């Protein structure tokens, strides 16, 4: 009974606020926003939008950077998994990648910018000895017009996400058996993986891939730090217009938000068409029987690429850590002239409340989301329901620009008299936590071999016990991973926390973003490291618990 309600509760929980939010983007986009004197419908906002200098370039930047980022990140992950032989080296690389998920996007962006900028860490280490540079060279590396730095930053963050999603899904595909079988037929290991495991894996990680596309086409914080500026990506332009003191800009900003939705959907559609093409074209290769070609390149490339990503991300983090204790650091010194704990001492006294808020909100939202998602999936599993079309609704919160649709959400909450408070912030976080938890867990749940539960039922075990004693333990690893992802998602929320909390629920992220606007790299570094701490603990637990619980059952440990 309860189970039957779960999918509807979940859909309602997401769609009602979403509808309110979307309406509040659509109406102003067409001229209607009575508080600002807009009480007729017209297309002026769209005309103003089209007349913007550089709009076309902004659109292309958002579209291509989203697609290329996803393609590169997926390529690296697939190549590494294909090359993966389960050696200690592979395991070590894999383990180093997971914590990278915990570092907030903005922190990675700051770290990367400082690494690769002409006055950055790499140049400092090489100068003046190797380069002869006493002053930073005048090179446009960060904020380059093609968005390469932005894409690099996004790849650093998306590779760990896709890798973790893949590892969680792989556990139930028995890749070793497939590869062993293929190898016994004479296929080289990398090719065996690509031909026998990947085609089964991709459907399981498809939704996470779509989420990456949606995220990469509409990302704001990273694009602000690393992206081009003349013009910036579409999402950054929209934020600038929404934040413009001239409130009439909000009409154009709303039209821009609708356009952003269109760009994201176009990117998703392009990817989908690409999928169909690859499916069609690869069929012959899959069954052609060619066994050797390229295996060595895969083995080398996969490890090299993932190691590069990991090293870059770790250097970025190391740069941040250095800065958090740095005194003045003159170019081209390799290390700061003096070290100091000033920055930590100034920040630490004020972070207790924000840390507690962050944790309580994140855990509450994750628990509610896990309950709803598991109930929905269990309902579908018991009644052998196919994936619902309605599940697409779940992903809308991930593709509509937050700033636009949160305004509508605040209006909605105020209209029904709900005051800003903790509970409202939790509710707002659910909008983002539920989709991520759902997409992290749903495929693993759906693909779990139904025969386990059938055997239990046929032995007379009631459905609830089968659920508790068979299904949940089998799904422990993916469930914990999904919870860790959603905890990280909740911790990363800035605008929902600020706007729906009425500024009364400070979290570590609201503190960090507010501080980031001041640009003091040292204090930003301190807050970014603090911000990474909680998700880091979450991911560590998600990896550790299955290893402890299944200490004697190696196959069940999942993502290790």
């Amino acid at each position, binding site marked *: 009974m309860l189970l039957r309600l779960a999918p509807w509760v979940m859909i309602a929980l997401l769609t009602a606020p979403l509808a309110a939010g979307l309406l509040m983007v659509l109406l102003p986009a067409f001229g209607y926003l009575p508080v600002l004197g807009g009480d007729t419908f017209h297309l002026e906002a769209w005309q103003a939008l089209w007349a*913007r*200098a550089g709009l076309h370039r902004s659109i292309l930047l958002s579209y291509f950077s989203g697609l290329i980022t996803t393609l590169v990140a997926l390529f690296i992950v697939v190549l590494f998994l294909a090359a993966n032989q389960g050696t200690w080296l592979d395991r070590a690389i894999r383990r180093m990648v997971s914590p990278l998920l915990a570092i907030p996007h903005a922190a990675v962006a700051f770290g990367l910018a400082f690494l690769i900028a002409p*006055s950055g860490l790499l140049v400092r280490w090489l100068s003046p000895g190797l380069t002869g540079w006493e002053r930073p060279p005048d090179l446009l590396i960060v904020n380059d017009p093609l968005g390469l730095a932005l894409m690099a930053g996004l790849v650093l963050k998306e590779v760990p996400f896709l890798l973790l999603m893949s590892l969680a899904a792989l556990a139930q595909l028995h890749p070793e058996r497939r590869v062993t079988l293929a190898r016994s037929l004479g296929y080289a290991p990398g090719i065996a993986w690509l031909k026998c495991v990947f085609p089964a894996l991709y459907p399981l990680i498809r939704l996470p891939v779509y989420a990456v596309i949606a995220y990469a086409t509409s990302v704001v914080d990273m694009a602000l730090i690393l992206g081009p500026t003349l013009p910036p990506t579409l999402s950054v332009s929209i934020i600038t217009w929404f934040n413009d003191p001239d409130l009439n800009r909000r009409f154009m900003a709303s039209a821009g938000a609708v356009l952003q939705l269109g760009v994201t959907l176009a990117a998703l559609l392009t990817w989908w068409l690409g999928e169909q093409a690859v499916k069609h074209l690869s069929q012959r290769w899959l069954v052609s029987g060619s066994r050797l070609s390229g295996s060595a390149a895969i083995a080398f490339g996969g490890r090299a690429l993932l190691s590069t990503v990991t090293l870059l991300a770790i250097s970025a983090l190391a740069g941040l850590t250095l800065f958090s204790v740095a005194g003045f650091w003159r170019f081209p010194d390799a290390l700061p002239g003096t070290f100091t704990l000033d920055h930590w001492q100034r920040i630490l006294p004020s972070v207790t409340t924000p840390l507690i808020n962050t944790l309580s909100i994140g855990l509450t939202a994750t628990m509610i989301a896990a309950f709803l998602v598991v109930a929905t999936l269990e309902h579908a599993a018991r009644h052998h329901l196919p994936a619902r079309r309605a599940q697409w609704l779940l992903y809308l919160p991930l593709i509509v620009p937050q700033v636009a649709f949160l305004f509508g959400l605040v*209006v909605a909450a105020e209209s029904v008299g709900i005051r*800003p408070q903790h509970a409202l912030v939790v509710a707002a976080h659910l909008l983002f936590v539920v989709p991520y938890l759902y997409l992290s867990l749903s495929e693993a749940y759906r693909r779990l071999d139904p025969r386990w539960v059938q055997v239990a039922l046929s032995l007379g075990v009631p459905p609830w016990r089968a659920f508790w004693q068979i299904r949940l333990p089998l799904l422990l690893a993916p469930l914990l991973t999904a919870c860790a992802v959603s905890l990280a998602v909740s911790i990363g929320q800035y605008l929902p926390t600020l706007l729906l909390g009425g500024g009364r629920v400070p979290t570590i992220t609201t503190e960090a973003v507010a501080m*980031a606007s001041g640009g003091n790299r040292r204090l930003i570094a301190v807050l970014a490291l603090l911000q990474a701490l909680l998700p880091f603990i979450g991911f560590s637990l998600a990896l550790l618990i299955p290893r402890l619980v299944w200490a004697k059952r190696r196959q069940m440990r999942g993502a290790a």
Partner: protein
Amino acid sequence: MPNNRNSLRATVAMAMLALALPAAATPDTNDWQSIVAEAEGQTVYWNAWAGEERINTYISWVAQQVDARYGVELVHVKLGDTSEAVSRVLAEKQAGNDERGSVDMIWINGENFAAMKANGLLFGPWAEAMPYYPLTDPDNTPAVRYDWTIPVDGLESPWSSSQVVFYYDTALVENHPNNMAELLEWATLNPGEFTYPQVPNFLGNAFITQAMLELSDNTELFYEPMQEEDFDTATAALWEFLDELHPHLWRSGRAFPSNSADLRSLMGDSEISIALSFSATEASGAIANYELPDTVRSYVHDSGMIGNMSFMAIPYNAQHKAGAMVVANYLMSPEAQAEKQDPKVWGSGTILAMDMLSPEERALFDDIDLGIATLPPSELGELLGQPHPSWVDAIAEAWQTRYVN
């Protein structure tokens, strides 16, 4: 029956009274004693940009003071951008929440003020009734009554005055430029070593506005609302200047730092050697924060630099207006202003007129050590007023069209 009807009437009357109560909570701005009485025990949510740790520390100091003096609990709502608070007020108005708004007070700049005033989002007039307000000598200080040429009309109280200053690294630059023409000459000789934040960032706007004022023969025009037909002739010199300057900027003008903080980082990394700021004490503060080398000093152009004041505003639907007024008034007190001006605390310019203060109050300011990179007030030169917002909007728009893409 009559009895029943009476009790019904009483119930209705009580219900109406209950409805009327929140409206009665709007304080009488002319009765200071009742404002103070009402403020006691209120919690004031002050929405203020929080990107500077020193400012945040100063705000917590203010919170202690108003708690001890007036029993007002002050909460700093830390913002990354002032428009986030404006969004909140706008959404509340849209939803019909006209009395229990969650934003009690906003630290606001001219552009946001103009927009909120035009859209009826502000409470007031209240500011001129505040006891400390006369110390700003409003009759002789136009900047207190006109925010970016928009009449303040008592809808906001002054808090800080600021003036654009340039700062440069004396280790890298021998003689700093003294006007825009010299800056252009210097940039040509030292390509890649100067830049300004990307328009429409307010410091970027300030730079092109300063250039517009310096390069024009007839600046009076800019203090009136812009007429479309004047635009091309009045700004021709500005575009000629920027067209010449841009190829010699950092990254040849193909990218710009996004705000003053970015600009400061570039200076700290020795990427550029001249930068600008909206705060006379920014350089000294950044040296103390390890962000800039101690060889940095400030300077201003001969013709004076534009500047403005920032203010405190109370949204029309703020729930704790009395508390907000008490805090805003305290912020104007000589004691709070002197504390704010101390570079060791924050180093932001005072809005008080020194000759309105008692000798003891003046002494609070005279004793402040301004820091090595800060120009004393006597050397800041003439303060040029901000042009009418319509001009700034128009040149910012035209900048986008010319230089984006």
